């Protein structure tokens, strides 16, 4: 389920956005929970990190959209922000608060859907799961978000995670099957990378959690394309 906050001071616009979201939700068969706010202040008050996406009007009395976005970014790096505005010039600057995109008023459905489809896919690409590992030091439950990458060495998998390193006796292929649909991709025969944590790419290296891992030539192209899909909101 995707949780969306709609922030606009005009009721008519909020209602229209709700209608659009419901229509899109039907089209992509996705469950969407909509929460309406009449001002930036109300959004900040209600903010509890459960939002996946915020649809933010720029021109509002009190805190305007850009200011509200700045305050939100201080709390939450991850949430997707999309501006709704009749001032295209201002929205171009939206990248400063790492807004994903903007929709122009008067709202039109196709334009809305073009942008929001990618946003929905981006949210789905971020999906995580808890997995139970039968490690060499006992049974461990970890969230896939905590995994930076998995390395294979002599029939053992080494999980490099934010919670330390775990070892498990299984094959990378079995693990890959368990992680299907999540943001994991091989860059090499012996590394399975969580695309979420990639912080840079070199000519033949991937940077992840401060380490540099080699990409193999045959896997490089596919790896980079999957990374691009992950980041750009295309189904992985």
């Amino acid at each position, binding site marked *: 389920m995707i949780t969306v906050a709609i922030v606009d001071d005009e009721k008519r616009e909020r209602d229209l956005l709700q209608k659009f979201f419901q229509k899109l939700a039907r089209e992509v068969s996705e469950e969407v929970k909509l929460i309406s706010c009449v001002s930036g202040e109300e959004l900040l008050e209600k903010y509890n990190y459960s939002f996946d996406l915020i649809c933010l009007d720029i021109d509002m009395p009190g805190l305007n959209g850009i200011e509200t976005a700045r305050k939100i970014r201080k709390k939450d790096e991850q949430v997707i922000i999309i501006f709704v505005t009749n001032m295209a010039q201002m929205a171009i600057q939206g990248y400063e608060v790492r807004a994903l995109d903007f929709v122009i008023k008067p709202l039109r459905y196709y334009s809305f859907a073009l942008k929001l489809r990618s946003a929905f896919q981006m949210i789905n690409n971020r999906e995580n799961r808890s997995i139970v590992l039968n490690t060499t030091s006992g049974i461990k439950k970890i969230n896939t978000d905590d995994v930076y990458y998995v390395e294979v060495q002599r029939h053992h998998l080494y999980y490099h995670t934010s919670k330390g390193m775990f070892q498990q006796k299984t094959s990378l292929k079995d693990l890959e099957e368990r992680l299907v649909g999540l943001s994991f991709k091989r860059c090499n025969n012996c590394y399975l990378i969580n695309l979420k944590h990639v912080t840079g790419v070199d000519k033949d290296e991937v940077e992840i959690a401060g380490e540099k891992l080699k990409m193999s030539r045959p896997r490089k192209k596919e790896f980079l394309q999957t990374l*691009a899909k992950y980041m750009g909101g295309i189904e992985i």
Partner: protein
Amino acid sequence: MIFDIWMRIAYIIQLMGACIIFMLPARKRSYFWLRITILSAVLIPLSYLLDYGYSHLNFGILVLVYWAYYIAAGILFVWTGMEGKWPQVVYCGICACAVQHIAFDIYLIYIISGGQNEMIMLLIYITVYALFYWFYAKRLLESGEYTASKKALFPIITIVILVWILSILEIECNLSIASGQAHIILYRIIDALCCYYVLWVQLNQKENKTLQRERDGINNALEQQTKQYLVTRETIDSINRKCHDLKHQIRLLRQGDNGNEEFLNEIENEIMIYDTAVKTGNKALDIVLMEKGLFCKTHNIQWSCMADGSLLDFMKLEDIYAIFGNALDNAITAVLELEDIEMRVIGVKIWNQNHLLIIQIQNYYAQELKFEEGLPVTTKKNKRDHGYGMKSIRYTTEKYNGTITVNTKSRIFMLQILIPLNNSKKGTCK
């Protein structure tokens, strides 16, 4: 005695020499000279023993092994000294064998035609090696590596086997191998190999020609675009100047006369169409966005752009123009085919995420698309003159180590370009 020893090890030494000329310009392993000296210390005595055995014992069919040993030794020698994957090493070793062989052939011609001067013999080798070093080995390299694919190895190996068998036949013609069944079989193998080689050359040439034509097409398109860029830049600059002047004049008119306020507002609005100059922070991007933006406005295409143009600063102006010009032209062509005007939407986004530059262009489309090698094929009739747009985008992107991804889903076409940004602070950020 010394001469006798020399004769037995001359081949291996010449071969190692040839290997060295190929390794010198390439990326060498650390302790290069130490490594190859140690290997030489093993190979030279080994070759001496083998040669001794070869001239004293009757090997029969084993002569084939004797010659194979030298090819293997050459490859091993290259592998010891040079960094690279096995196709590159094999490729290099075989090239070295071929160069040694050429020098040896010239040397033989000299001997057979009665030459006896040892200095000239030495000179022959030095000249041949030097020529191949300058005009072959050095030119073959690409950033310290021989670009050898497994595909390229196949014909090379064929030819070497051919030369190898020919040499054996010539030298061993008085041995048993040259007579009877074996001889005929060998001869037929050579025959087949020759024919195979001729066919391979044809195929290869055709492929090269196609590639060349494609490259010409892309270059041509790029050249056109650079020209167009310059013209557009001038036009837009002059429009912007005019707009600025006009606004100034309107302000002056307002001060003088109050009756025509409405009329003046109208004029101002008219001018505003041209004054929506996009300011993304990158000149080339501004120009291409404005050019295509004006077109969109007059053709009822809704379009939006969210871009931090300064991210593109590391790219050449004409490259930016080529990428966006082509991509937006494609998008515009696609949405104009849509009957429902509401669906004529184009979205452009440029952002930076984790030191990766991402450019995304989205639009709805009407016609089913066909793909070739991951890129959509032109829907226009004239295939020879069109269809370079996408390839040009890919070509330009790859120049910056980037990749392009094309995706179609729910009647939305999405072109995505990913280019790693070189960050000087790389490695320090977690």
